[in-house]
């Protein structure tokens, strides 16, 4: 279980998150939605110590982690993997070496053992034939799948996806959606997905929280969102250009 309690975060004079609180149920596919720049990515980075809140608490499986230092964050990052928006594979390493890196660092495996395990992990995302290729040689969808394989190597309980379907073609995007759903259904992994891809949201989300102007505007299931009379939420989920939604 993950709990965000009264998170406040500012960058200089700009307050991005204002008293954000919600719980993420274990085993669910949990979407965080909202306009670009509203602080969705900023929020999930707090969970793994890539950012620290100005105030508020973050609880992970009964432990308050918002003030953990880099060393204490090690086990948290092993438990909560992250797939970044632009895949962030290391260009100087092959796909197999990219996937092997967390195995070597988190699990202390030898290079040979890590590479063997990495190839197996690439097979799961159907990328085994590209194991010895470098990331710049691959398309966006392929890189995303390698990034997902890298995130899953340490067998995390939680996976944070930062806009996983952005810049992907529709077929690749739906494959990524299916993979996220499978993780939850078959392995019991909790997925926190930052997205504004409406197709993804309304096909695989168990719970959704919407951030608007730095605050939680609404939290609920897919049907709750579809049925809400809130004009701001309705405008966002229907993608209308005019209405009460302010950027």
């Amino acid at each position, binding site marked *: 279980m993950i709990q965000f309690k009264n998170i406040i975060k500012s960058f200089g004079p700009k307050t991005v998150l204002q008293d954000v609180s919600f719980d993420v149920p274990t085993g669910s596919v949990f979407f965080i939605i909202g306009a670009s720049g509203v602080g969705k990515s900023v929020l999930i980075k707090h969970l793994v110590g890539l*950012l620290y809140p100005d105030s508020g608490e973050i609880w992970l499986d009964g432990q308050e982690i918002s003030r953990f230092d880099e060393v204490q964050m090690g086990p948290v990052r092993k438990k909560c993997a992250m797939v970044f928006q632009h895949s*962030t594979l290391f260009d100087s390493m092959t796909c197999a070496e990219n996937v092997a890196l967390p195995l070597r660092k988190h699990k202390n495996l030898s290079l040979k053992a890590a590479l063997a395990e990495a190839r197996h992990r690439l097979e799961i995302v159907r990328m085994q034939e590209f194991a010895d290729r470098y990331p710049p040689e691959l398309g966006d969808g392929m890189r995303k799948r390698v990034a997902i394989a890298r995130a899953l190597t340490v067998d995390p309980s939680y996976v944070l996806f930062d806009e996983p379907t952005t810049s992907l073609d529709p077929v690749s995007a739906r494959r990524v959606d299916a993979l996220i759903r499978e993780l939850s259904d078959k392995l019991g992994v909790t997925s926190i997905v930052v997205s504004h891809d409406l197709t993804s949201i309304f096909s695989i989300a168990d719970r959704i929280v919407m951030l608007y102007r730095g605050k939680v505007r609404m939290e609920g299931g897919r049907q709750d969102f579809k049925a809400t009379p809130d004009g701001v939420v309705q405008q966002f989920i229907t993608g209308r250009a005019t209405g009460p939604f302010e950027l």
Partner: protein
Amino acid sequence: MTTGNPQTEPIDHPHEELGAVGALGAAAIDLLIGARELYSVFVRTLYYVARGRREKGALARQMYEIGNRSIFFLSITMGFIGMILVYQAGLQAKRVVPDYTLLGATYLELLVRDFAASLGALMLATRVGAGIAAEIGSMVVTEQIDALRMCAADPIDFLIKPRFLASLIMTTMLIVWAGTVAFVAGAFTAYFAYDVPLQTFFNMALVDSGDLAIGLTKCVAYGAAIPIVSGYCGLSTFGGSEGVGWATTRAVVNTSLAIIILNFFISGAGFLIFPA
């Protein structure tokens, strides 16, 4: 530097409303914070050099990038600098004592004690320092540094350490090579411009162990300063491509400053320990 995510932090100008004295004080505090973080990068690099795991091939790759790829640039620049220095020195000598017998010996002492290391390192700062800052800065703005941290790989261990070790080795070797090129270029300049025989120019009488010790100390100090300062500039990048541009500029400026300041202190210490 390691606790935030610089690429998401907007550029603000907090000193604008403070007035002259306040802005000066704020700038001094910023300088102190920067110095502390730079020191922290240096100490953590030494820590990982002592106990971190070696990445296979990383050191060799960086030695190639820093060393082999700088040889042509450094040879050309130091060759021309050597020619200019000897030509100018010859002109000055002609006015005062029209005798060139010690031109090579004094030039060699100057090269070994100071110029080869300092000028060579300044040249390296522009090529190597800018490259390190741009590469690491790009990794910051594309979240690759965050991804490294998520993989339990400390960016200092993974990125700065191999560059630090490679720079220590290759800066020393490059400076020895660059000094040789500058000396040979100077010898031919003296031969063609002032008819100084090559065997007269190749005179090592004035170079002693103190000069060698000072020169080598500078090589090591500059070799350490270039990756640490430029790596720190890269890691403290914020914003997008504009931020990477600023990081690169700061790396060249700050590395050059570090070299000049180190030169002052090492030369000062050298004159105390090994008086001429």
